[in-house]
């Protein structure tokens, strides 16, 4: 579960870190990818993993479009964070209700041939969909790390993040880089959304739930820190798994949130220093 939230959260973290845009509609984009995967699976039996090939480019272009026409005007605001939050909250509402119109409010479940397979390693049980989600998420996180560290564009993104002015001096086209980052961020939400759909049932409203969790994972891990988000996700997963053995299940969620609070108080910059 943790790694999947991490994949869903990376993009959120990227756009926050690079552009100071808090994208409230992030999870809603992920949910669109989940619905697309569902529709493709139902109509042509296309495996959800393959559906990513369709939804990721689609979301990338949609995001670039949104960046160009909606986010550019607010980058001059006094506090971009604040304005972007309001803007993307609006986008999230619109997306949710568009989904409601297109796909109806019925809850959906992704069912594939390997849905109910399981691997047992010692005392641990791993369900196939969870494993698939984990692997896909790790791959996604890996690809993004690779992109950021080793490609020219990725390096420019990191530079823009750390020293926007200096980066511009060195000939980095900030506008273009920002647009690509935002596109990538939203596209990664698409991949994350499909992973989530492996684990949970979803309906148009579900994105707000995902958003809260990915917010937690991203921040506790350290804003903009990809590996941090992955570790924070894993920690939440481990807390949930272990606590059942020691205390009544109804206290699990409370314990999770309580521990996250304590972690943050002890480490005010998140688990890991935020750096790309």
């Amino acid at each position, binding site marked *: 579960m943790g790694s999947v939230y991490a994949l869903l959260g990376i993009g959120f973290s990227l756009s926050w870190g690079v552009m100071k845009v808090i994208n409230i509609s992030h999870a809603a984009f992920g949910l669109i990818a989940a619905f697309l995967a569902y529709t493709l699976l139902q109509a042509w039996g296309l495996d959800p993993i393959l559906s990513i090939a369709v939804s990721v480019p689609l979301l990338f272009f949609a995001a670039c479009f949104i960046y160009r026409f909606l986010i550019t005007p607010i980058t001059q*605001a*006094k506090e971009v964070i604040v304005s972007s939050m309001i803007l993307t909250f*609006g986008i999230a509402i619109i997306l949710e209700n568009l989904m409601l119109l297109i796909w109806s409010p019925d809850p959906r479940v992704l069912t594939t041939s390997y849905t109910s397979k399981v691997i047992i390693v010692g005392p641990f049980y791993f369900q196939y969909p969870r494993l698939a989600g984990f692997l896909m998420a790790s791959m996604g996180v890996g690809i993004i790390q690779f992109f950021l560290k080793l490609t020219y564009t990725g390096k420019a993104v990191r530079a823009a993040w750390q020293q926007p002015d200096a980066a511009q001096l060195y000939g980095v086209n900030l506008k273009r880089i920002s647009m690509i980052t935002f596109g990538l961020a939203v596209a990664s939400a698409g991949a994350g959304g499909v992973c989530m759909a492996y684990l949970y049932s979803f309906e148009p409203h579900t994105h707000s739930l995902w958003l*809260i969790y990915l917010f937690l994972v991203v921040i506790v891990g350290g*804003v903009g820190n990809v590996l941090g988000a992955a570790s924070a996700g894993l920690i939440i997963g481990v807390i949930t798994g272990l606590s059942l053995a020691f205390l009544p299940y109804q206290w699990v969620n*409370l314990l999770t949130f309580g521990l996250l609070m304590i972690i943050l108080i002890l480490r005010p*910059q998140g688990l890991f220093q935020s750096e790309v």
Partner: protein
Amino acid sequence: MVSSSNRLVFGVSILLFLCLAIFPWFGLPVYFVSLLFTVFMFVTLATSWNLIGGYAGYLSFGHVAFFGIGAYTTALMMKGLHLSPFWTILSSIPAGFVAMLIAMIVGYPCLRLRGPYFAVVTLCFAFVVDLGIKNLDILGGPEGLWLKSPDLPIETIRAILFEAMLVTMMLSIMLAYWTSRSKFGAGLRAIKEDEEVAQTMAINAPRLKIQAFALSAFFPGMAGGIYAYYLTYIHTDIVFDMMISILIVLMALFGGGGTVMGPVIGAVLLTLINEGLSTFVKAEFARIIYGCLFIGVIIFLPNGIMEFFKKEHRVESGISLAENGGNRSAA
């Protein structure tokens, strides 16, 4: 100049207060009283949130916790002490103090966090309180609490609650007004600009932040207490609804954070427009229009609606919150 503007503000507020105060006694349908009651509630919440979120730049996403704590304190006091209706309304004042006390306890460690980390820690705090009450049967547990409604006609009950909420709202706006012109407010603004610099200017930042946080929790607690009495059925899903937290933040920022009138305008506009949309437009389309409204307004007024009123008085551009957080953590 200042004093004449002061006098005008006072005059207008008192006039407005009186106009609003007699509103429920005109025999209009109870719904309008309830609607305005809700508007006042959100104005109170957004204005109070603005103290810590708008002035000091600490975005608290857990303010619903104080609202809920107020509601539950009142409900439990009423149940435990068998209060009469009159005392119940007054019991929202101790409810406010309970919220304030909890804010101080929680604020002490949490206010050391900055930017997004503070936002998340308050979010977690709201969940912890919510789940704690849900899991403890003595506090109502998953079933919630029922309050006894007094044997008065509904119009009277609504009118009394309306007045109570109106007074709460007026007090919270007065506090905001005072803050905006006091040293206290200036200190908070300095913290928002740059906390380190503020520290060197002999501003006791930790103390100011705690004070602001505690004050910003007091009125939500009171509002929660009054609201508990309005609803007569209290459940964690209702009074700890995360949507309230998000709405408060959006209302304040939509209107314009760090200003006195911004949260008021934001809360009034968003509540009324949403209500109007639900009334006249089919469900999904109403939501879509509501979403477009956010986008439309923010593209043209990226700093909130207040900008529209004071276009000519451009405020000095501050360093944005995240830039602060980001730079510091990168350093």
